[in-house]
């Protein structure tokens, strides 16, 4: 549960940073992994609608497909690695 909530928080940051394609990828992962945890669903749906309207259709669809191929634990490890690298700089 904790990692799903954290993932959603990170998605909002990624979107705010203007990394919209990455936000779409992670959002797909979020919807795949959230299971019974639906506390962010309304916000996630709004975010998906916004990203879909802001990105060209082809770009959105490509990002969506990349998101479907992501592996949850792998993404968490990548986020932690990014964190470690950032703190060492």
């Amino acid at each position, binding site marked *: *549960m*904790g*990692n799903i*909530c*954290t993932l959603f*928080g*990170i998605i*909002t*940051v990624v979107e*705010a*940073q203007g990394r919209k394609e990455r936000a779409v990828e992670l959002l797909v992962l979020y919807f795949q992994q959230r*299971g*019974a*945890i*639906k*506390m962010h669903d309304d916000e996630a749906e709004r975010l998906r609608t916004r990203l879909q309207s802001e990105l060209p259709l082809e770009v959105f669809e490509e990002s969506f497909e990349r998101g479907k191929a992501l592996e949850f*634990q*792998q993404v*968490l*490890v990548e*986020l*932690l690695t*990014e*964190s470690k690298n*950032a703190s060492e700089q």
Partner: protein
Amino acid sequence: MSLGFPEKGNRLAEESRAILQDRNAPQEILLAFTSLLRASTYLTLTQDQYVELRQVAQAGLKIARGSGDQWHVAMFLYWAGQYARLQKQYKQAAQTGEKGLAIAERLGESWLIASFFSLLLGTVEYECGSYLEARRRFEQGLRYFKETGQPWTIAVSYGHLGNVAAALRDFPEAECCYRKRLKIFGESDGQLWETSARCSA
């Protein structure tokens, strides 16, 4: 509060029953507390059920006060505050939380104090849009949760602080908080680190 884990909710309810039996708590408190746990954090609830659970919390509070059990008085005030919050009765939730916090502070119970700060009063401020006050509450909660040394609660506090930072559009700070949370969960999740080891091998 609606997390949808009925198995975990039921397991916690059984654990709380065992704990309360050890403490020789009155049967009524045991039943009320068990009901609250079973129907609360790990179950998906309706607004009507929040109303019912708030009534159970009030009943538990009355019993705890009658038996002079201050720990349970604080605990039931916590739940009563949470259900008021979930019904969006924020003023009532804050007032109830402050009463419970005062008792928890007198008892010197770090976990209870932190729960009032982080999980109730901070969340009330956050949901009311008072982000600076929410941050102050969450930071107080984090300080007490660190005293307890429970990783999960520390991680949850960083999540709350991340949400506040995001609401204040301080995205670097939000990212920092979310990653601290992720790191703590990662360190307490063997599966994640097994994956990490495979990736780096």
